[in-house]
């Protein structure tokens, strides 16, 4: 019992972290999400091109392969890609691209490439990876206008992922506030809120979303539409969280330590913020984590259907609009790559949420630390 730090001296936050760390999948998901959020945050730097710059030499071009071995020079440390050689199939008029071994573009890391405005703050031109001016780099291929899918996925990540976070933040505010009011005040207030939640939950979500987003004025700026969609999504999602919060408030209100605080003379605010909220903050965070993928999926669905975000904005849903045509699956399957990212992010959030839920109660459970 003389280890440097005894279990009894460890804070609950640290116990939670210790338990979370043992959940390997959740930890890996967490790291993946951190990486992808960082990439989205600095997408101007990580992207090769601006989301709307076109390459007329590559329309509907497939992803380029990164090579290390040159038929002439053999293995070389600097990876490179080959340019496209375009032939048009005379029977089907389909563009067929093959690698043109006479054009070789070496990858350059942290090198100057296409100029961009970083966060609209200052101009820069350095990219994580790029190729010399004469060449082009399309790791995920291009779309019908010759725009680079890789760059657009990164720019889309910024919109889709931040929308998930902001939407859930708003959901938490609404859910905790309304659920807390219902649980703490009880009586008539509780009754009215509960019935409202039931009505909101009984309306099928997709038609309601569509109706609400169709109501967004068409002359709004892209940014306005972006925040409009966030408000619409949270407006529907807060109900679940409000119920959880209300239930916890009701249960905790009668706990001895809350009664004790009341008998010590603690005011309402002190009881709520010092005793009630900390006791289920972990539950709120977990619920929120599990709600983020719902937000991202909802945005993707709305934009896919054409009633969410619109063209000048690049989001994963907007990108997938191009994949609505079934021909895509045969002819240009790389247009589905944004969908792969949606799937990965949603799975990662769910695994992370699961791990957090298991770790949230450091004193309970069968496998205590």
């Amino acid at each position, binding site marked *: 019992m003389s280890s440097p730090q005894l279990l*009894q001296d460890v804070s609950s936050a640290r116990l939670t972290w210790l338990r979370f760390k043992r959940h390997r999948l959740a930890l890996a998901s967490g790291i993946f999400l951190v990486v992808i959020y960082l990439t989205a945050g600095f997408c101007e730097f990580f992207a090769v091109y601006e989301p709307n710059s076109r390459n007329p030499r590559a329309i509907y071009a497939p992803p380029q392969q990164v090579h290390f071995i040159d038929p002439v020079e053999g293995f070389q440390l600097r990876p490179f890609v080959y340019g496209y050689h375009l032939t048009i199939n005379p029977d089907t008029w389909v563009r067929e691209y093959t690698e043109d071994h006479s054009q070789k573009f070496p990858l350059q890391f942290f090198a100057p490439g296409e100029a961009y405005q970083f966060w609209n703050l200052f101009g820069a031109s350095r990219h994580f990876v790029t190729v010399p001016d004469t060449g082009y780099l399309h790791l995920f291929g291009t779309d019908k206008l010759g725009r680079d899918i890789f760059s657009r996925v990164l720019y889309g990540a910024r919109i889709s992922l931040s929308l998930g976070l902001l939407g859930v933040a708003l959901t938490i505010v609404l859910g905790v506030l309304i659920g807390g009011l219902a649980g703490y005040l009880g009586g008539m207030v509780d009754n009215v809120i509960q019935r409202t939640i039931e009505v909101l939950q009984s309306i099928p979500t997709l038609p309601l979303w569509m109706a609400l987003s169709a109501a967004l004025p068409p002359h709004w700026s892209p940014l306005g539409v972006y925040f409009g969609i966030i408000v619409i999504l949270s407006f529907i999602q807060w109900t679940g969280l409000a119920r959880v919060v209300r239930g916890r408030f009701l249960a905790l209100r009668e706990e001895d330590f809350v009664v004790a605080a009341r008998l010590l*003379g603690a005011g309402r605010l002190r009881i709520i913020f010092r005793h009630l909220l900390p006791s289920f903050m972990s539950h709120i965070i977990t619920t929120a984590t599990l709600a983020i993928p719902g937000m991202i999926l909802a945005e993707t669905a709305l934009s896919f259907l054409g009633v969410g975000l619109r063209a000048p904005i690049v989001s994963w849903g907007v990108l997938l609009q191009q994949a609505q045509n079934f021909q895509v699956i045969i002819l240009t399957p790389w247009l589905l790559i944004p969908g792969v990212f949606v799937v990965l992010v949603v799975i990662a959030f769910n695994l992370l949420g699961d791990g957090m839920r298991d770790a949230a109660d450091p*004193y309970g459970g069968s496998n205590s630390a």
Partner: protein
Amino acid sequence: MSDELLRVNQLNVRFPVMSRGLLRRQTSDFHAVKDLSFHLNRGETLGIVGESGSGKTSLVRALIRAIKPSSGSAVFNSSQGQVDLCQLSDKQLVPLRTQMQMIFQDPFASLNPRMKVGEIIAEPLAIHAPASRAEHRGRVIEMLGRVGLEASAIQRFPHAFSGGQRQRIGIARALIMQPALVVCDEAVSALDVSVQAQVLNLLADLQAELGLTYIFVSHDLNVVRHFCERALVMYRGEVVEEGAVDDLFDRPQHNYTRLLLSAIPSIDPDVRLAPLSRASLGLPIE
């Protein structure tokens, strides 16, 4: 030291019984405490005994205003003069909270698991006596010493302590503002026997040191006999007998008291426990 600290008159506690369903009308009420009157002298220890459901806890929770009594009065001789605890609003009660405190039954549920022991004990100070952290710390450490815990405890969380130690933390929190009246609601019944004795002795020592007045709720008659001077016997929300513990235990007047006394296990293992039957005493069977 025989001046009166508390006089309770015709106190009633009723809990509404709601109908099920959408409208939730109040259909009837449960009368937990019926027209109860008693007095409490400064410095004494009053026991309240009775079986589960006899209204002991409702009574003390109403006195300390954890719940609102339905009617009656409870006149408390506070340091600011006489006040009726039943008439005050929650807000008016706040300053009085320093003068009456409660020690809870369950030492695991009554401490917030997410606060350090130092913060738990300092909470009354933070509410009623805003001062520097260092000042609070000094008082907390002094109080920890009084209840027999080390000063290093302030950095730890409640889960690091045993039941008896946690109860000491609860006692320290209740006593740090030096209240006049302390309500112990089954304060030792969740502890094992040897720890019970330690905590009881601690409570007795603190009473002598700080001049406390205790209301001691218990279903353990031996503990009440050892610890209290007077006791009330409660049965179905009413006091059926009241008096000095020696009189009560040696010469019980009411059949219900006799029933309770007959149910105390003997220390001699050869003496078989033979509680009287309710029917033979003319008491209704629940």
